[in-house]
């Protein structure tokens, strides 16, 4: 674990040496103009082949222990990080590989490499939206090819910050209100091309104003320019109407369905709701899917990855 940490620190130091400054999110002021000189983690990693190769190496990031990379980055504390973030804790697990498979499908669905804002929602609460958002964001950031932002748009039950063990604000709410800069709200992580945007501090009466105003649309537009993929952790479709207001401004939505729990009519209602609000549903993601015991996928996967 200590060796891994040293390697991470070495990677970070090399990146600092190349730029002369620590990697930081793009200047919020510059983000107003998408073609401004925004320094992105992708640019950073692309400029440093060693770092790119390092990040592409999957055996390293899995064993990142609790350590602070720098003052500007999020503290990836393994003890505080939610165990459900398997893309961090168990990089070689079958579940993580399933997220990688999802990554491959998403990239294949976007052959022109357009910037995408993808809403991740579900029919009911507790179906695995936040876990999916975090894990999908992390596996998408692997290799440093894409600039990834994980954003928490569930103001009522914000969970990204809790799962990462970081502070809730500043976040998306502050950005929409204009009370925080992008450099403050969009927080870097130990991976140069992965940023996190928490929900921020909200009040119950503000929910409608936050998601229904034009500011939210502008924020989403800016974020879509700065990042290749923005994953929005949205509230459930059938419980609140936030999705109906925010999701139409996204490029598409992923519907998370918990197997053997969410009733079929409820999911059908959610689909109808999304379709009536002109949300393009990219597809479904089935969570807590129990494969048969001794399934050949797992058997061969275990054989392939445990060969060492």
């Amino acid at each position, binding site marked *: 674990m200590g060796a891994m940490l040293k390697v991470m620190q070495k990677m970070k130091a090399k990146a600092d040496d190349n730029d002369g400054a620590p990697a930081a999110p793009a200047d919020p002021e510059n983000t107003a103009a998408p073609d401004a000189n925004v320094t992105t983690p992708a640019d950073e990693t692309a400029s440093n082949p060693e770092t790119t190769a390092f990040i592409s190496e999957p055996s390293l990031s899995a064993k990142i222990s609790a350590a602070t990379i720098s003052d500007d980055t999020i503290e990836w504390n393994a003890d505080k990080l939610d165990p459900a973030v398997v893309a961090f804790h168990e990089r070689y697990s079958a579940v993580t590989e399933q997220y990688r498979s999802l990554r491959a499908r998403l990239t294949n669905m976007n052959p022109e490499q357009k910037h995408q804002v993808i809403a991740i929602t579900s029919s009911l609460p507790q179906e695995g939206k936040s876990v999916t958002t975090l894990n999908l964001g992390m596996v998408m950031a692997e290799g440093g090819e894409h600039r990834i932002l994980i954003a928490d748009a569930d103001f009522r039950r914000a969970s990204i910050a809790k799962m990462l063990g970081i502070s809730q604000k500043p976040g998306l709410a502050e950005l929409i209100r204009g009370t925080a800069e992008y450099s403050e709200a969009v927080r870097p992580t130990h991976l140069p091309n992965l940023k996190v945007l928490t929900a921020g501090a909200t009040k119950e009466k503000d929910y409608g104003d936050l998601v229904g105003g034009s500011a939210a649309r502008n924020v989403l537009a800016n974020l879509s320019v700065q990042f290749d993929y923005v994953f929005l952790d949205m509230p459930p479709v059938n419980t609140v109407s936030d999705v109906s207001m925010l999701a139409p401004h996204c490029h598409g939505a992923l519907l998370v369905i918990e197997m*053997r*729990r*969410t009733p*079929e*009519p409820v*999911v059908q209602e959610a689909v109808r709701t999304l379709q009536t609000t002109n949300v393009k549903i*990219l597809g*479904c993601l*089935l969570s*807590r899917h129990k494969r048969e015991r001794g399934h050949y996928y797992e058997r061969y996967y275990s054989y392939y990855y445990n060969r060492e």
Partner: protein
Amino acid sequence: MAAHQDRALDDLRNNLHEYARMLRRRWRLGLLGVCVVGSVAFWISQYVPRQYGAATIFERRDDVVLRNLIHANSPYSFEQLKSSIKLDMTGSRALAEAAVSIGLLPADALTSETALTNTEMRQLSQALRQYDLTARVSLVQSSPSLDTIELRCSGNNPEVARQFVIALRDNYIQRTYSRISEILTGTREFFEQEVDRFQARVTDASQRLQEQFDQFPGVDPSDPASAGTRLETLRGEHLRLTQRQAELEAQIDARERFLTSGALTAAAEPEPEAVAEAPPALPETDSAIDQAIKQVEQQLADAIVVKRMTSEHPEVLAMQRKLENLRAARDAAHTPLATARAETAKPTATEQLRKKDPVMAGQRLRVELELDSLRSQLAIANRHVDDSQVRLSEFTVLYERLLENSDDLRQLQDATQQDIATAGVWRQHLSQLERVMAAESEQRGTQFALLEEPTETTRAIRPRAISIFVVCLGCGLAAAALMIALAELFDRSFRSAAQVTRSLSLPVLECIGVLNTPKVQRRQFLTRLAWTPAMFILLVSLFGTASLAYASLERPDLHRQAVTRLDSALRAVGAPPTFLLQDSEE
């Protein structure tokens, strides 16, 4: 066709896979159903009415000699006993008598000796229904003279069933002895009738045979060949007599012609005195006879002395007869001549011839003497021929009649002989049977040997343990299947990616497995923590009730002990008045 088969196979595979998936997913529910419903079923099975069985095996060995004797020679047979064995042991009459024997029916319940009356049948049915008594008989081994019989009874009271089977068996044995006595008595009467019948036939045939013998006196009617031989003998004798007669007639005729010839007549006619005075040829005749006698005596002496012939030799006998004849002829020649001389003073033609030609006179005399002798012989021969002709005619008629009746007579004789033999056989059978009947042994004709006595047991034969287990576990499995089916029916959640695609018409990008987080692990642990004791209790309940059900069937004593202890335990913990022991005692 192949595509259709592949599709059918795929459907089958998918269905099986779906069932297996349901089972894997709902196994707890299934286990709950199996254990709860199975336990209840096992518990209830203890109160299912029991059937107890009692069986006895005994052997009936028939006397082979007596059996074959009766079977082959009389209208009775031991086969009747074998064919009616079920009726004898499990018929209404037998059941009623057994019920009376063990006290299920009063002693005076049976009033009729044959079929039961309606009232008796009703009483019998009530008694049998009260103890649920049934009887079944089977032949374990059957051979012509040996039967191994198994008699089984079942009822709701083991002791009653045991007594019932013993009563049925004993009654059957007694009834069999009685029937065998009846068979022996009837067979003896039949044998006696047969002996009498054949004896009468023999007597009648003998009488008819005697009549036939009387019709053929001096002849054995049964032997036509000897009669024919005798007839031939008679014919031969008759022919010989006829020939003798012809010979005599020819000799007489020759001599008569000699006497009437001219030589003798001429010699006698010229001198009648000479004829009268002519000396008889007696001396010459005597001398000739004497010479012949001497000659024969010499030949006889030669035959005896020189040729060493015995007196029995035919030639000797013939010479003796010839010698006697010659002597007789000489004597005869002397006697008539002397008589003639004395009676006739007047000289005859012979005397005249003797005077004239003594030689011729002697010859004439000899011829006349021979002629006389021949005539007397001819007379005798004629008489013999007549007698022979009469006998031959009579015997011929007799013989022809004998030939006509010979077949009937022979048949009559054969039938008589056969009847005599048959009567002898029947007498032999009768004596054999009477020897058997004279024996004081009760087991005459057949013997019974008890191979297996009904034992006192409290182990039920019905319901069988395997049946109870199959039914109870079947109920449990059916309940489990029903519960799983209902759970699946009311479960509207998604269970597969294909279902999602089919229902939403949306692509499934990925199926993410269960994250093995501490929360999930904790939940699984809590689930196991709750399920393990529950499963243990369920399984203990299932196996406990199954053991009780098994013990109630196979080990009633053990079951009673277990129920007693369970009852005590329930009383100790303050349970309401227990029903275990009360029901068990019932």
